[in-house]
């Protein structure tokens, strides 16, 4: 399984290039194929989760009009929507998908260092997805405990899916973590060990930095989810009382005593908050590269961008209890967690300023990936600012159970990363497939998605301020709300269905491109990073033909004064370009 240089491989039977359909596309050990497998699977489950959100919105916008949505399956929709979107879509897509595709290509390596384990990672991930999907169809249905799976209600009578649903969910999570660990060890080791000659850490593109640090966060944080999942499995199946207090459930005593639901919350959020950055950091990295490439300017403050990623990653481990203000805690702890939460705003704001400063006086090409990247800056600032509100204990307490929080986290870790996902797919699509997509259709896709998501989530802030509670199937005793709140809810639903429907444009575009899109140039964006410099287009197994590339410069040599092209690829030597440039953003 060890990494064998391509040139040395000929004498090793086990490293023969794949030649049958099965070894090439199904049981493939090629990181590019595995990336596509991860991507397709993640997007497939993501579509299921999108469908679930549409059902929730139907109920909220037009209560009682849809007989097939009852309170039980409404909660199942919430739970599965959240869990799928956060873990099975975004984590898998950013790390398993983009991580797999980009790390070896951007670092100038042949493949991941452990290709077999990489393949295994995908198949174990697929198993976790299959188990998750099976849970929809078992008696009692999938779990309806909310995506945070808080005990005691997650395993108490009255919650949907407490028989098989919750068991399959916990098992699926545990299997996902195994898959992620196999992939994650690969990504980290590949970044550390398999970079090509000249690719120092501080010459890596920010996409790789974001994915690298996010993987480290994942490796250290997912064990917390694993521990809590195992302990809850024990509580459910063996009747231990790790988390379960003495409860009377539907008039009977299930036999628990003394457990601490708060303990679960600590463990869950010890994973849960870094998880936000497991999703966000790859997005930060990718968007930096997209902005720089399409603005034809070096990223502003590269070193600061790297250190901001690292700082955010470190800080993300000491803010978890800001998710637990409403659970109650010592006021000094509340003060501590509020402070650390607000401190995270500093490196994050540095990144936002640097993105904007990268655009400043840039030669901005408003191509589809660029539109999505700029859109991301908007949605991320909006979601981030409401995060500053919610980081404070006194503001969080009244807002925590309202739509304000729904609006906040959807802006910051729903819409924002998804915009980057789209931008990244449009950006790397020519490299992956060798074909171009329809630019006009892509722009329609962007504008409808971007404006549509604002139409969904901006009004939710007002609903939250007005006190509309989240998680409710129907409003019930909420006379304090004006009747217009329901009108707004209906409008949000219409917008949500509209945005969901417009995603078809993306799929039409991609399918059209695959079938009859024009062949793309090997480097259509005139980008500097290594993946655009491969000898074959799209890159073949082994990526680099006979010779590995050598890197002589960072990834951001755009519009270098005195050079006729407005970009210099990383593998172009100093003898072919003017030396002694001094145009960095940090002087």
């Amino acid at each position: 399984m060890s990494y064998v240089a391509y040139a040395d491989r000929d004498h090793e039977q086990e490293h023969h290039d794949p030649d049958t359909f099965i070894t090439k596309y199904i049981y493939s050990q090629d990181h590019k194929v595995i990336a596509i497998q991860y991507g397709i699977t993640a997007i497939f489950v993501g579509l299921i989760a999108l469908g679930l959100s549409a059902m929730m919105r139907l109920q909220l916008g037009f209560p009682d009009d849809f007989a097939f949505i009852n309170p039980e399956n409404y909660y199942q929709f919430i739970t599965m929507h959240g869990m799928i979107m956060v873990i099975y879509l975004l984590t898998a897509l950013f790390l398993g998908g983009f991580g797999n595709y980009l790390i070896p290509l951007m670092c100038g390596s042949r493949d991941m260092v452990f290709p077999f384990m990489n393949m295994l990672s995908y198949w174990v991930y697929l198993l976790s997805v299959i188990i998750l999907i099976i849970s929809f169809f078992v008696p009692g249905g999938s779990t309806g405990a909310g995506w945070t799976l808080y005990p005691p209600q997650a395993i108490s009578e009255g919650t949907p899916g407490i028989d098989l649903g919750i068991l399959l969910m916990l098992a699926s999570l545990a299997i996902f973590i195994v898959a992620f660990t196999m992939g994650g060890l690969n990504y980290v080791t590949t970044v550390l060990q398999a970079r090509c000659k000249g690719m120092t850490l501080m010459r890596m593109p920010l996409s790789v930095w974001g994915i690298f640090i996010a993987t480290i966060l994942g490796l250290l944080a997912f064990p917390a989810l694993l521990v809590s999942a195992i302990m809850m499995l024990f509580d459910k199946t063996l009747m231990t009382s790790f988390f379960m207090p003495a409860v009377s459930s539907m008039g009977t005593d299930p036999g628990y005593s003394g457990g601490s639901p708060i303990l679960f919350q600590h463990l869950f959020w010890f994973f849960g908050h870094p998880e936000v950055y497991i999703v966000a950091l790859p997005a930060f990295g990718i968007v930096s590269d997209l902005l720089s490439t399409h603005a034809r300017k070096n990223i502003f403050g590269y070193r600061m961008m790297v250190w901001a990623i690292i700082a955010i990653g470190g800080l993300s481990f000491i803010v978890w209890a800001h998710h637990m203000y409403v659970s109650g805690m010592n006021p000094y702890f509340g003060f501590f967690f509020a402070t650390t939460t607000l401190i995270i705003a500093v490196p994050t704001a540095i990144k936002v300023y640097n993105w904007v400063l990268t655009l400043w006086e840039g030669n901005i090409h408003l191509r589809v990936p660029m539109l999505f990247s700029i859109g991301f800056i908007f949605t991320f600032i909006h979601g981030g600012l409401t995060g500053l509100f919610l980081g404070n204990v006194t503001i969080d307490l009244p807002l925590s159970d309202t739509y304000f929080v729904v609006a906040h986290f959807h802006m910051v870790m729903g819409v924002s990363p998804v915009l980057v996902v789209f931008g990244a797919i449009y950006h790397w699509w020519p490299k992956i497939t060798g074909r171009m997509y329809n630019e006009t259709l892509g722009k329609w896709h962007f504008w409808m998605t971007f404006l549509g998501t604002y139409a969904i989530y901006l009004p939710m802030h007002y609903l939250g301020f007005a006190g509309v509670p989240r998680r409710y199937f129907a409003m019930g005793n909420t006379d304090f709300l004006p009747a217009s709140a329901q009108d707004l809810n209906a409008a949000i639903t219409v917008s949500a269905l509209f945005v969901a429907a417009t995603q078809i444009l993306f799929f039409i575009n991609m399918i059209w491109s695959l079938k009859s899109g024009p062949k793309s140039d090997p480097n259509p964006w005139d980008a500097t990073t290594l993946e655009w410099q491969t000898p074959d287009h799209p890159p073949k197994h082994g990526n680099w033909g006979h010779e590995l590339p050598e890197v002589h410069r960072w990834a951001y040599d755009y519009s270098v004064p005195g050079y006729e092209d407005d970009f210099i690829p990383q593998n172009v030597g100093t003898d072919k370009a003017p030396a002694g440039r001094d145009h960095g953003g940090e002087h």
Partner: protein
Amino acid sequence: MEIGLITLAIILATLLGWLLKQSFNTQPWVAEQVSDTAHHGPFGGGSNTKLIALTAFLAVVTSFFALIMSAYSLRMELGDWVPMTEPQLLWTNTLMLVVASGVFQWTRNAAVKGQEGRLKPGLLITGVLTLGFVLGQFVAWQQLQNSGQFITNNPSNAFFYFLTGAHAVHILGGLYVWGRATLKVVLGTGEASAIRRSIELCTIYWHFLLLVWLILFGLLLST
């Protein structure tokens, strides 16, 4: 959560120190011809790849056990905790694991020096002792069950079963890799360098799991 946080702080501080060393005083925007020192990353090429991966994996396992111990200490503070009396057999098991780790080190040293005759007995003794440890833990479970100490009696019991079980699962994973290396030695197949590498990495893993066990055992005894 103090235990989890302190462990994490140590892991992150190590990483941070290393990253600082990599990035301090570099000027990434300055292009220069490749020098040979820049080759293949900071750890000196492909030979260390498995060691790096193992180290990263050990960090994951450390995080896993530190978090269980955090949960242990948080749960212990609640009123219903009744300290458990650990079976005496655990001392014998511990001794077996200590000796197994020692013999593995001896085998590793022999492998490094090229004394191939010692590999087979060394590996077999290690395997027998380690299997003995796992079986011993299982017997300890049986003893507890026979004396009416079930997993549901008290959270301290539940944690005992959870901690020892989780540790044993990690040992079994190690035994799988040990089995592959031993099979190659016994059958005389496989390259000597690959076997030596495998033994070296297994030894690190064994020492690590011994350390984890000693910490867990200490925690169980003291509470």
